[in-house]
């Protein structure tokens, strides 16, 4: 490492007067404050650049469904709806899959296999979003259009959420791709939480005559509950802010539609689509305000995730 050794040398001149520790402290503190400064500046910029829209629409922005550049009327509801519904669909798929896989990795698989698989799952988390989008356009979308969505419609077409046009692009497709993108988070964090469960929990249950599944379900899972919920929140936060893959498959329609097969739009996707092309100043401000809404949304979810992960790891380490 070049940086740390360069640090004391550069400060030799000042050392005599202030003491080297103080200089090092001050220097690192400046960089630490830089993090705070950037974050504050970021929020400030979003706040200032959304002023036009905030003043014009007030809180009504959140509940309005208008997105009409001709009449200069903007509302966030279709995008908030799209963001929430796609994230919800994603979790519906990725939570059972992810928790199941985490149970397998922590409770059943031999150590070596578990480590290898976990490593592969972590690699999956590293795949760039745009690559998921690229593959989804050419495989998932035709698959959903020709087989999955007509299939669902044939079975459960009476429900309003499964009616209407089938495009292949839409909420459900975005939900599926988000599921694939979020389960690595659920798996790796849930696995940690499960591994933190003290051995005695399992042994006690097994000694009482429980099967492996019963011990896992009744003794281990409840113990790791908060950590698993934390992992779900983490996945949720990730899904809410995910941009590229969603933009490429959601169909980009700025309206709320009941059908899950319908094209929609998420907050992140509408920003990606329209930000550099917004012609009016109010239009641009409305997009920045959407960024602000997304920021608040992910901040709340992230804070909840952090809280739960902290609580479980503490509990785990205290008892184990």
């Amino acid at each position, binding site marked *: 490492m070049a940086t740390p050794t360069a640090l004391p040398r550069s400060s030799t001149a000042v050392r005599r007067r202030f003491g080297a520790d103080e200089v090092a402290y001050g220097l690192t503190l400046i960089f630490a404050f830089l993090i705070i400064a950037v974050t504050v500046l970021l929020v400030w910029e979003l706040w200032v650049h959304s002023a036009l829209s905030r003043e014009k629409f007030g809180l009504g922005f959140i509940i309005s469904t208008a997105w*009409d550049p001709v009449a200069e009327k903007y509302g966030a509801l279709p995008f908030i709806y799209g963001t929430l519904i796609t994230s919800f669909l994603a979790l519906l798929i990725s939570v059972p899959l992810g928790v199941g896989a985490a149970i397998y990795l922590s409770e059943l698989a031999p150590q070596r296999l578990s480590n290898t698989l976990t490593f592969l799952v972590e690699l999956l988390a590293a795949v760039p979003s745009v690559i998921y989008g690229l593959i989804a356009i050419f495989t998932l979308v035709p698959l959903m259009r020709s087989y999955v969505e007509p299939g669902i419609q044939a079975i459960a077409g009476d429900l309003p959420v499964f009616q209407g046009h089938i495009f292949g692009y839409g909420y459900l497709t975005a939900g599926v791709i988000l599921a694939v993108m979020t389960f690595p988070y659920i798996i790796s964090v849930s696995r940690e939480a499960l591994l933190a469960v003290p051995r005695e929990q399992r042994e006690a249950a097994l000694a009482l005559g429980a099967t492996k599944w019963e011990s896992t379900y009744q003794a281990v899972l409840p113990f790791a509950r908060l950590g698993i919920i934390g992992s779900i929140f983490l996945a949720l936060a990730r899904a809410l802010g995910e941009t590229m893959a969603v933009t490429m498959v959601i169909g980009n*329609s700025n309206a709320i539609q009941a059908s899950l097969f319908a094209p929609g739009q998420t907050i992140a996707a509408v920003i990606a689509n329209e930000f*550099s*092309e917004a*012609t009016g100043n109010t239009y641009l401000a409305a997009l920045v305000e959407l960024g602000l809404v997304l920021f608040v949304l992910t901040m709340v979810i992230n804070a909840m995730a952090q809280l739960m992960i902290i609580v479980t790891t503490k509990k785990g380490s205290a008892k184990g």
Partner: protein
Amino acid sequence: MKKLVVLASIALPALFAVTAMGAETINAAGATFPAPIYQKWFGEYKMAHPDVQINYQAIGSGGGIRQLTEGTVDFGASDMPLTDEQIKAVKVKPLHFPTVLGAVVLSYNIPGFSGTLKLTPEAIAGIYLGEIKKWNDPKLTSANPGAKLPASDIQVVHRSDGSGTSFIFTDYLSKVSSEWKMKVGANTSVSWPLGLGGKGNDGVEGLVKQTPGSIGYVELIYAVQNKMAFADVKNAAGKFMTPSFQSVSEAAAASKEMPADFRASITDAPGVKTYPISSFTWLLIPSEIKDPARKKAITGFLSWMMTTGQKDCEALSYAQLPKAVVAREQKQIALIK
């Protein structure tokens, strides 16, 4: 880590040296409608004038207008002339330079139908308002006697970004359908009643290509290059016209006088041989360019584009500028300070 640092210290200057190698770089952004010919032009112009390179990013007309307003590009490109309000918003007053004419065509992908679809203005408005839902709707079959149109759903595709192609299309629909004018209106972005959104002309064409039963509006060349079918549209004189550079030129010739600032709409033009969804497309050039080298590069390109460049039009299915317009544009170049 030390090796990395050494590597970086060698690589970085090398990267930055790339800039020095280039000569005058002009950055421009905007319309995707004329992007194929612009890219050809900028490529050819660089060949002939190695000291000028123009980087054109086809991000949509809305983007061209927005980025010109923000001053983040040297010039913009749009298929929608700026409104008075938009002109006022730009610090340095922009001048409109028409470059070529093109057609917005209705490109479709109907499995099992191989003929040429004929569309009336009412049918187009009906499809995009969501009132015509099936390909065998009477409004479509009556204009296409004998054609076997399937009973499948129509999948409507439109633009998701701020688009001049959208403006031309919605401007046309506002002229031919009072319902459209009242409910939706004309702009680079509008509140679409239904449909899928694609980014850029090629994004829309990509969606149409991949989605059976779909229809989308794109500039003619995008349909031609992708070998996609496109519809004949009934013009104001009641004739179904195939979009081509000839029928677009007819529309330009039939339209009323070109205003002094070149902001003209030629959609729904009168005349028997006109294709009704035709338009000029414009470069938006600041009326004052401080850097003399940059000014020379831009004005040099403008005069080249109006003369030599026009010869590229037909091969890419665009129509050349009328001679009278070129003469007046050449005078406008002198207004750039």
